């Protein structure tokens, strides 16, 4: 089932949680609402489920207006951040709850519940109480319970938030696999960009109650539409400069970039750490003289921190361990830094 979010706004007292949000979630997609806390992503999810009413705007399921329908008539599977398992019911009773309250025939409940428990790999644990399960298992019970009533869509609020790092990675790979099997329209909320990019096939970046950018993960990552997205998607080096002759000028350095601004515009340049190259000698490309202040080679990339004393600019640079071994960098070395890629935003680009 497709979801259409049509000019939704929501205000909590003096706080604008959602500001005229429009979004379409196509049937069968797996979409991530990504943003910092307070960006309105959870409120949007709750409005989709009917747990919150919007001040204005409409929600349509398959082009049918459901804005005024209560949650229990919407047939939505919702997995809560706290899982909200019923503590006094066994795993079996939790999963069967939705079927029982919808008065499914008794004979159908048991096989359906057992099937679901098998699917979420909890077969054999049906008699356990929620208190006897691990975090990951509880999460899967919550998922099975939400799926039991054959919902038309699945909504998940920070589904991996409460789990420890290892279980989190396992579970999100598993959710991706599950979605490939059952193809139910799924929306989940997260503040972790890595999670969003790994699991979703559509990413919607939100900030201050508005959608900053929506698109496929690769597209969003490669071409961030706004400085916020650029900033939010990970470590980034920021330059303040001026546009001259199609290039951004930063002190004595001129850098070419794709895009065009009028000469003389104040602009901000963004370069990701892995988009900077480092060498002992100045390269043919324009490069910046800097001094190494910190080296951290533990991990899959070597993280180098340098300072371009001329401009008082500190930069983070990621290089491969091979390259690191080749360069033999240590603190205090004089190096030359050259960007492989740069994105430039001027204030005019995103101020309406």
């Amino acid at each position: 089932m497709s979801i259409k979010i049509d000019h939704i706004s929501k205000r909590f007292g003096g706080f604008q949680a959602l500001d005229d949000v429009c979004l379409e979630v196509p049937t069968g997609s797996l979409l991530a609402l990504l943003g910092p806390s307070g960006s309105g992503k959870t409120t949007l999810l709750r409005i989709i489920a009917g747990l919150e009413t919007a001040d204005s705007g409409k929600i349509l399921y398959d082009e049918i207006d459901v804005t005024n329908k209560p949650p229990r008539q919407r047939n939505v599977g919702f997995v809560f951040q706290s899982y909200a398992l019923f503590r006094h019911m066994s795993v079996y009773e939790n999963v069967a709850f939705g079927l029982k309250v919808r008065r499914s025939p008794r004979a159908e409940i048991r096989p359906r519940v057992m099937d679901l428990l098998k699917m979420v790999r909890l077969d054999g644990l049906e008699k356990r109480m929620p208190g006897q399960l691990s975090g990951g298992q509880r999460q899967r019970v919550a998922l099975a319970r939400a799926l039991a009533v054959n919902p038309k869509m699945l909504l998940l609020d920070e589904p991996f938030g409460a789990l420890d790092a290892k279980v989190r990675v396992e579970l999100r790979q598993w959710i991706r696999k599950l979605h490939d099997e059952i193809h139910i329209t799924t929306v989940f909320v997260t503040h972790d960009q890595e999670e969003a990019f790994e699991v979703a096939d559509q990413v919607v970046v939100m900030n201050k109650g508005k959608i900053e950018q929506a698109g496929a993960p690769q597209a969003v990552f490669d071409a961030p539409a706004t400085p916020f997205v650029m900033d939010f998607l990970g470590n980034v080096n920021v330059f303040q400069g001026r546009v001259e002759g199609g290039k951004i000028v930063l002190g004595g350095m001129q850098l070419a970039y794709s895009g065009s601004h009028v000469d003389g515009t104040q602009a901000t340049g963004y370069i990701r750490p892995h988009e900077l190259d480092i060498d002992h000698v100045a390269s043919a490309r324009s490069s910046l003289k800097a001094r190494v202040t910190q080296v951290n080679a533990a991990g899959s990339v070597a993280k180098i921190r340098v300072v371009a004393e001329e401009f008082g600019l500190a930069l983070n640079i990621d290089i491969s361990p091979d390259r690191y071994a080749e360069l033999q960098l240590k603190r205090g070395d004089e190096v030359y830094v050259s960007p492989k890629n740069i994105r430039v935003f001027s204030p005019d680009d995103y101020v309406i």
Partner: protein
Amino acid sequence: MPPDARPKSTGGGSHVASRLAQQDPAFVRWLLILACVAVMGLLVVLPVVAVFAEAFREGFATYWANITEPDTIHSIGLTLFVAPIVVVVNVIFGLAAAWAISRFQFRGRTILTTMIDLPFAVSAVVVGLAFMLLFGQQGLLGPWLKSLGIEVAFNVTAIILVTTFVTLPFVARELIPVMEAIGSDEEVAAVSLGANGWQIFWRITLPNIKWGLLYGVILCNARAMGEYGAAAVVSGRIEGKTQTMPLRIEYLEQSFNSPAAFAVASLLTLLAIGTLVLKVWVERLTRQEIQEAARAADTGGAH
């Protein structure tokens, strides 16, 4: 059983369910509110109103005469004499017990906590009996004490003893959770700065627990002034000698002097109302202090 010791109200108003899925239909809401008002009206408000109505039934002059009757004056005096002693003794005990239980780990700590709860569960009459078995004429200690010229049974001393027993948990039970919640960090810091025990108590602990302590004192006092069952057994109910206010009420009721009984009852009802008002006031102060502390922590964290 902590809820017994601290029937703490939540202050109300702050926690009203705002989520859509938690809301009940308006007619259900009003029906239930109405039911509550009816229950409280019938069970609580009506009796309180009735106490004053009965007390003033024969006019203010009679009321005044009933209250100023010498034996009644004596019973008021006795109650006002017994309650402060009991409160002071139980405050000292409460502070010591809370310090021991919340600041140290030792074997038998749980048993100690359970023992403090015991007076909640034991019937006041059984308490009275127990003290009679100790101090009565046939009691374990009674004859020996009498040979020393000390009479406990049918005496004010016995009333003080049983009242102390019955109200023993209130201060301690109020302080233990407060002190556990505050933790001992500040006191340990004070020790490391060279403070001695009394300095720590007066400068660190007491300012931190003052509202909890006051709350315990209020409850302890209300129960001490109202104690009836145990006092009835050990006092001998001697008019003008060992008759506390609750015992005076019983005596007047049995001598068919209902307006006088209600006159004394009206004083104790005022005490109960005063207790509730004080309780609300202390809770408000505590809440304010918590909010101020939170605000201070917020602004402190911003730097």
